[in-house]
Structure formats: C-alpha cells, structure tokens
C-alpha cells in the first residue's frame, strides 16, 4: 500500500515561491479544460480566444486595460490589508462608496469645472477609506471578526445604493434606477484619442509603485508588516497595533475607492446597480496571485482583465459560456492557496508494510 503524507520543510522552497503563480495559472487552465470539453469545444481553440483576443487589436487592448485598472486598485487594496492580516473582503463595498462619492461630486453644478476631477478623486479616497474604517474599528475596539463584517458591509452599501437609485437619486431624465450623469467637465481626461483609455488607468499605474514604496521603504509599511507577521511581538516592541490596523484599513479603502472613481469618471459617468461586476472580489484573487506584492498586482490584474475580455470573444466563437471566466478566477485562487501549502510542506510518498 502506498501512503502520502505532508512533512514540514525546514525552509520554504525559494524556487516554488517564484514560480508559484505561473504554476497555479497553468494548473487552473488544465483543470478548467474539462469544462470546455463538456461545452463541446476544442480546448486549445477556446483558450486561444480566451487569452489572446484581449490583446489582438488596439481596441481590445484598450478594453483590457480599462478592465485592468479597477482590478489593479482592488488588488492593491487587498494586498495592503492582508499584509497587516486585516482581512478586508470589503473592497467591493469600498469601491461602491468611492463611486458614489465621485458621482455625487461630479454632478454638482455649483463647483467650478476644473475642480471636479481632483475633487472626485479626493472624495472617492475619503469615502472608500471611511467605509473601510468601519470593520477596522469594529475589529480593533470590539474584536468583531473582520472577514464577516467587511463582507457583510458590501451588501449594506450595495442595497443602500440601489435604494437611493430607486428613490431620491434616480435620474429624472431617463427614469431608470441610475444616478444622473456627471457633468462633462467631470469626465476623466482620455489618454489616447478615440478610446476609453482614461486617467484612472494612469492612476493605477502610479499607485502600484507608490504602494510598494510605502510597504517596503517607509516606517509605516514596516509597522504594517510587523503587525501582520506577529501582532504580539509588535505590541511588545511598542507598535500601537490598533492604530496601525486602522491606518491600513484607511489606505486599503482609499485604493478601492479609487477603483470606483475611475469607473464613474472614465467609463459609466453615473452609478448604477451593475457598476462593478465583482471587481472587489476579484481583487482578492489578484492580491493572492501577486503574493501580496504591490508590483505583482499589475500583471495579475492584467491577466484577469484579459480573461474577462477574452471570455466574451471565446463565447461568441466557440459557444463556451462566458461564466468560464469566473470559474477560472475561483479555481486560480484555490490553486494558489494549495500551492502556498507546498511552499512550506513537501509530500512524501511511502510504501507501507502491514505486519
């Protein structure tokens, strides 16, 4: 008889550490191939559409980047929070808070036109941070589980938003449950003529190295990593744990809020129920795939944006349902988590004799 068992490695495997995200994605694609076969399509052809159509033309590339921007922000938000072991599952709600603030400010007639875009950005930062501070305060003051509270607050803000959109904030012109459009002066500048490549994408590209700098080179990032690695030892060293968690939550929420500002200022010019197709949740997958490294978030966000854009092309060409994109997200997260186990444990195969 053969038995398998896990044995702790003396040191985490450095080789696995580096290649893990790639292995996890490869494993995901192999596992999901079964679904494509079930859908009656050719696996290679379907994957060709899924992974290549997002970069196959200028238009498609821009669309991929447009989707990558909010994913990069939510990925950064989660990466920062998870470093402090503040389990922020609420990037989705913080994104909506930022979007609502941006749409509200963008529609103010009394403000000078030039001030709208900067004010929308600041407003989204403040709103996202404020919404993220709730689970942090609950955790620090009352030891409320942050996973549960940050997750449930997503539903609170989502339904509060739909209630507003169906009532006082309903667009009087269209009559749909959408907010009124923001003013033309509030629309984010376009970086590339005749495309949707907006300011938000540039902001995401700037944010990632800044967050990296903060985590790696600033005293604050040092405290965040201390608290995340070992809160007990951090407290012993004199780090104010509660304050660090709260500041981490504010930064995390601000980043997620920026995702919302970009969606309102650059894409939709209003808020509506379908504003985010779960960018906040995909951010968790992205952060994990990036091993919580802010610079790694950029390629990871690009990859998932590629999958999302490619899924539609794949569906049109091969008939495989677009939902495959979401299966891939979930499977990638599972593969990554399993892979993390193997960086610290090795599998031993042994033959057993029964006697």
């Amino acid at each position, binding site marked *: 008889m053969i038995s398998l*068992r896990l*044995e702790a490695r003396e040191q985490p495997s450095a080789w696995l550490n580096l290649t893990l995200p790639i292995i996890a994605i490869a494993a995901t694609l192999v596992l999901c191939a079964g679904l494509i076969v079930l859908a009656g399509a050719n696996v290679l052809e379907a994957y060709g559409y899924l992974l290549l159509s997002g970069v196959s033309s200028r238009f498609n590339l821009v669309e991929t980047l447009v989707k990558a921007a909010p994913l990069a922000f939510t990925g950064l938000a989660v990466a920062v929070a998870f470093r402090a072991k503040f389990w922020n599952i609420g990037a989705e709600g913080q994104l909506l808070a930022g979007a609502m603030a941006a749409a509200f400010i963008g529609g103010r007639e009394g403000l000078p036109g030039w001030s709208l875009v900067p004010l929308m950005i600041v407003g989204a930062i403040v709103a996202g941070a404020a919404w993220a501070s709730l689970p942090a305060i609950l955790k620090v003051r009352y030891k409320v589980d942050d996973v549960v509270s940050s997750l449930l607050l997503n539903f609170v803000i989502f339904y509060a938003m739909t209630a507003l959109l169906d009532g006082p904030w309903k667009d009087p012109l269209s009559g749909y449950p959408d907010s009124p459009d923001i003013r033309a002066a509030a629309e984010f500048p376009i970086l590339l003529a005749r495309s949707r490549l907006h300011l938000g994408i540039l902001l995401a590209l700037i944010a990632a190295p800044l967050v990296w700098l903060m985590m790696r080179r600033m005293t604050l990032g*040092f405290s965040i990593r201390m608290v995340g690695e*070992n809160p*007990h*030892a951090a407290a*012993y060293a004199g780090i104010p744990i509660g304050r660090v968690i709260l500041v981490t939550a504010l930064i995390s929420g601000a980043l997620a809020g920026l995702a919302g500002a970009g969606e309102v200022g650059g894409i939709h010019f209003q808020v509506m129920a379908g504003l985010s197709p779960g960018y906040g949740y995909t951010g968790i997958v992205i952060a994990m795939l990036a091993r919580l490294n802010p610079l790694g978030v950029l390629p990871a966000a690009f990859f998932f944006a590629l999958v999302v854009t490619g899924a539609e092309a794949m569906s049109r060409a091969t008939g495989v349902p677009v939902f495959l994109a979401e299966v891939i997200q979930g499977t990638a997260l599972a593969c990554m988590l399993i892979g993390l186990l193997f960086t610290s444990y090795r599998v031993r195969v042994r033959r*057993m004799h029964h006697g």
Partner: protein
Amino acid sequence: MAADPPFLAMHGICKRFGATLANDDVAINLERGDILGLLGENGAGKTTLMNILFGAYAPDAGRIEIDGTPVEMTNSAVALRHGVGMVHQHFHLVARHSVLENLMTGRPGRHGLLDRSGALARLDEISAHYGLDLEPDRLAGGLSIGEQQRLEILKALFWGARILILDEPTAVLTPQEARRLFKALKAMAEKGMAIIFISHKLVEVLDLTSHIAILRNGLKVADLATADVNNKAELAELMCGHALTPPHRAKQQKAGPVLMALDGITAGGRGRQLHDINLTLRGGEIVGIAGVSGNGQQELADVIAGVEPVLSGHIEIDGHPITDPDPVKMQAAGIGRVPEDRMGTGLITGLPLADNFVLSRAGQAPFSRFGFLSRTKIEQFARRQIELFSITAAGLNIRTGTLSGGNLQKVLLARELAWKPKVLLAAQPTRGLDVSAVDFVHEQLLAVRSAGGAVLLISEDLEELLQLCDRIAVLYEGRIAGVVDRKNASRNEIGLLMGGAAS
C-alpha cells in the same frame, strides 16, 4: 542459542532536511529497565530522532525493531500501539476535563460508549503498580504543573506505553517535584519499562540514568554507561566537542546607585497574578527571580517590559518615576528586554534578519528619516551586531526563523545590549539553549553587571541563579516569598520558598 534481541533497537537511522543531515546512521539499543539519557546540543538531532521513534517523521534510512520485530512508525497512534509513549515539554491536556476524562481521550469504549468504570479500574491498577497517584475526578486545569506532568505520564501508561520518552521534563518543576518524578521514573524502570530522558541538565542525567547517548551534528558520538562517567565536564565536552570554561564571575561588585525600584507593584488579572512587589536593583548586581513557572514571573517581566498595565504601585528607573509604563517609555528609560518567548515575543521570525535588529526603533533616527527607512543604516547596524556577537547567519535578509535557537537568543541580546541598557530584563534567557550558547548568555549578563548595569534574571533553573546572582527573590503565588542573599543561599531553602513554605 542466540542472545535475545533488544527490547528497542533503532538501526542506522538517517534523516536529511535539505542540506542538513539531522540524523546520520544513528543506532540506539534499549533493554527493559534501562533509563537512557539522550544528550546533545540544540540541532544535534535529539528531537528528530525521537520524532522518528514517535512516528512524526519517516526516516530516510534505517529501521526500528521492538523485541526483534521490525515496526513502521507511520504516526503517533501507531507508535502508541507499539508501546511508545511521549511526554512533550508542552502538555496536551483538556483543562476542563477531569483527570479520568483526559485519560479516556481518544479511547472510546465499545459501541461508541464511554467505559468509565473500566477506565477507573485501569487507572487504579496503573497507579498502584507505579506509585503514581492522582485523583480521577479533579479537573486537569486545576492541577499544578507537576501534577499535570504526572497526568501526561499516566496518559502514556494508560495507552499502554512500555517505552516512555520524556522531553526536558524537569524544566517546569521545583527541585522537590523533580526528585519525586525521578523516584517514579526509577520505579517504572524497575517494573520493566524503558525510559528515554532528554535533558540539558547534566547533573540530573548523571543522577537518574543508567546509560547515556550523546548526539553531535546528527552523529552519535558517545554511548556509555552512566557509571563510567566521572563528572559533568566530561559530558559537556562530548556534547560540544571541546572543553568548556564556565564564565568567570567577578567577586562582589561595589553596589552602584539604585537603577530600578519597584514599590508595591500589583498587576495582572485584577491584581491576583502579581501582588505588592517591592524590589530594588542596584548597578553592578544581578538579581534573580526564582519560582515555579506560573507564580507571577510572566506578569513581573511584562510589567517591566511595559506591556502589562500596573494596577497599583510605582516604578522608578534611575531615579525617574515612570507613570503608565508602556514599551516605548520603558525602553526610553533604559530597560533592555529579553522576553521569555524569544520566537513569539522578542523576534518576528517571518521578517528578514536585519529588520529584527530594529523592531522597536525602526521609526527613530538614524534608521528612519521623514517616515522613510534607511536600509543602509539598518543593515550597517545589523551587520555590526552580528559580527560583535558572532551570530551565525547565512545573510542579512534571510528569514529570521531559520536561525538556530542559540543564534536567535544572540540576536535578541545583540539588539538589546546595543543601547547600553541601565537595567536588563532577562526572562528565561537560557531555556532550551545548548551548553555553549548558555555560557555565551551568562557571559553577556555578567558583562552588564561588571559595566555597572543591573540585571533582573528570571529563571526556572536554580543552578543558573545560584551561579550568577547576587540576590535571589522567590516568587510564590504572585508575592515575593523571600529574598535570599548569595552568601547564605541554599538550594533547599529556595526550594522550600518556591513550594510556598514561609521563610
């Protein structure tokens, strides 16, 4: 007729972890009635060998035989079935279960029903046989540490152990309790059990065992009858491969100024853990805190470290009163802190080594300016301390957790002593360290003393306290039961104070 096969035989055991060979062709033979002392420095491979015997690791090569029959220890349940039991340093008891319920854990009776009367009968039988008594209905959480250990031993016997492994069992006991444990172990051996005793305390090993096996760098370097050993220096030399000179303790220093004064300190759990502590430390002295673990040592250390709020009383450091102490204030006042749990409290093992040198000072100049860290300054500082304290590390940015226990403690000392503390708090600074690392730590404590600083040494090792301290205060149930001067300190008197006898 061939000789009977040995009771337990481990042949040619090899186990490799990455580049290190933790066990290299190790053989152990044990007969019924043997008490084997297993000695070795940390990292010598003792724990690995015992983990292989107890089924936690699979050996890369080698075999285990009991009464000549090869056995495969695939996990601890299998090991128990073959009669191998282990008492770990940290107990695995369910505090809210009774003694009897703890014994029955994992042993349901027939048909999924608990067999209480059967278990009770078996406990009586074992107790009578080995002279280990414990009331079956007491809650495990209410037992003293010594009694909890007895329960762990009973548990192993209850599960049918014929070979008992004890990992540093005396670390948590008073001298009196240790003597009682040895009596029980000797009785068990006389009844035909085999015992493997892992310890750092050479005196105990000489006192208790019949055989001694010494491991060094994964190799068995000696296997001798205890009767053939002349003194403990001989054992120490075999363990570390070279002769040891115990650190020189200078004669009585001239007492310096009062560096720390605790006045009526009450703290912890509404004042129950630490009560009305009055203690003065002068420059140039080492004051020891003796006591059985759990009598307020942790709270005392935490108060001085600034992490345990003081409920009443005053602290003065070098003449300055400290109100509402916290870690930042205490360190600024000149307290160096070596906490008991170096892996969990003193260091952050998941962070790079260099970072651990500045855990509490990363936000201060010169390590940080305008909120930005100066990696150069941090690494310079770390490199200097690593050199000064001859710490063995593969690099500045390796995960700190990969260092050996002795080197981790050196990192802690190197960090705390860099700031020339007026008072050094050292809680269990040598626990779990090997002989040469212990000597190094002792040297450092004595160096603080001769430089005119004060050391508060909290230890459960009486030998260590008697060797280093100028005065020893004994904690019992959160109060100072007595202070003994070095000149007229006797083990017996301190032992009695530790057990609660009034002086």
